[in-house]
């Protein structure tokens, strides 16, 4: 490992964050950015599989999807959408603070982002609890016989199809929530590192890349909200 150390030492003079196998900081930064974008593409395809399933079933079972969708709370869904959008803004501000070398500002934006993320998760948790109480969680206890339209008339959708909707709902929002949890963890770690002064105006790639991740998770929710909550609400 002597070579390794020698080269590492040689670069130490320039920037401690520059890894030995890169020839310049720019190359390293560009590599990290491209890597992150490729990772985001894998995320698109990962959720893409579920969006594909959703779309097919929505076409096949539209009436049941519409009926089941009306059991979701638009208020909570819209509130959560707003929370995520605001958190995306705070991420942008965090990146700008890092760029400007404002350490305390950076830390506070990161903390706010985590708090907003947790708000989202808590609200989501309340929604899930409601689903448990109303027996709208797929499985042996699932019950969907008590749906009524505006005139108080029972809508006779096949409960099995409604169960399919809630299966998709839990799969998609659950996977999204998992990504939120990961994002919150990520930003918490970054906040600690930022507090310790790891990031400088010359090196804040982790903040930028974590930000990209957060925005993508936000975008996924931007699609999930109308697709899951807003099916045929006007009738």
């Amino acid at each position, binding site marked *: 490992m002597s070579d390794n150390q020698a080269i590492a030492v040689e670069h130490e003079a320039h920037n401690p964050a520059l890894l030995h196998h890169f020839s310049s900081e720019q190359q390293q930064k560009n590599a990290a950015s491209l890597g992150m974008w490729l990772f985001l593409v894998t995320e698109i395809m990962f959720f893409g599989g579920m969006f594909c399933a959703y779309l097919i079933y929505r076409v*096949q*079972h*539209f*009436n*049941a999807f519409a009926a089941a969708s009306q059991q979701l709370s638009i208020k909570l869904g819209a509130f959560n959408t707003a929370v995520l959008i605001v958190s995306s803004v705070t991420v942008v501000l965090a990146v700008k603070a890092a760029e400007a070398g404002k350490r305390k500002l950076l830390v506070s934006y990161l903390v706010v982002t985590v708090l907003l993320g947790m708000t989202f998760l808590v609200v989501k948790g309340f929604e899930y609890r409601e689903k448990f109480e109303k027996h709208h969680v797929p499985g042996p206890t699932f019950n969907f016989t008590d749906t009524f339209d505006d005139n108080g008339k029972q*809508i*006779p*959708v*096949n*409960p*099995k*199809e409604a169960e399919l909707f809630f299966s998709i709902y839990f799969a998609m929002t659950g996977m999204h929530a998992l990504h939120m949890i990961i994002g919150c963890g990520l930003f918490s770690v970054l906040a600690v590192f930022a507090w310790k002064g790891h990031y400088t105006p010359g090196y804040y790639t982790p903040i930028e890349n974590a930000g990209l991740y957060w925005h993508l998770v936000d975008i996924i929710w931007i699609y999930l909200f109308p697709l899951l909550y807003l099916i045929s609400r006007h009738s």
Partner: protein
Amino acid sequence: MAGQVDALYIYLLLVSGVMTMLIFVAVTVLAIKYRRMPGRDAHQIEGSTILEITWSIIPFFVMLTFFIWGAVIYFKERTPPADSTEVYVVAKQWMWKIEHMEGQREINELHVPVGQNVKLIMTSQDVIHSFFVPAFRIKQDVLPGRYTTLWFKATVPGRYHLFCAEYCGTMHSGMGGDIVVMEPQDYAQWMAGGPAAPLQDTGKQLFATLGCSTCHRSDVQGRGPNLQGIYNKPVLLEDGRTVIADENYVRESILNPTAKIVSGFKPVMPTFQGIVSDEQLNALVAYVKSLAQPPAGTAALQSQPAAAPPQPQNTQVQ
């Protein structure tokens, strides 16, 4: 059909045999002719766009002939002639249950008369199976929750292997049987051997006992659509789409009545999922289909003693 598949197969064998020989001979000849020898250097060649285009386009057009011929056969294989005898097949781990329209039932054996077009309407009670008769060159997966169809015409009497070709668990390899192709008179004799009421009669009884006939009336439009003659006809739906009322549509309308609501009707029909078995479903479907031929259908109806006042033909089908 087997003959057509074989003809295409032979064509493909010839073309790819020629291609394979071409490559093999070229590689062998070149490898020997240009083997390394002292004093002889390689001669550099960059490539040739004309050659590249040639050997991209020619194979493509050859492959196009494969596609067209193959698609034509496939289209025929998937389009049962109108005069087919229908047989219902229910697959389950690990057996084939067969129901003839005449009510005959058999397991792991399918008796058919020679020269008759036979259409199989198949569904599975559990996992995916696949109905494969190598001698007829046909195969179709059998799925839970819907019908798939397949047809064939046997031309030579004899016993032919029936295999399950989609892996379905422990005894997948034991889920086989025979297609017994018989001369028409032998077949008639065999058919006479069983008791059994025709499938649509079973369906008709179910139609009454399940209460379908209270809404799906034959004389007037009830709360559900009149099912007289709807089979294989286009149906206008409430959301503006038009669908063909084939077996799968009838089946879906019994199990998921609200999925496709007929224009002008309300989604009031309850689901029969979990209430009717796959065999009963087959009988109901057979009954609804029998309503498509009014003369025979009505005749059968009239001979039926009416248990409840107006109970004729209708099934749900919203």
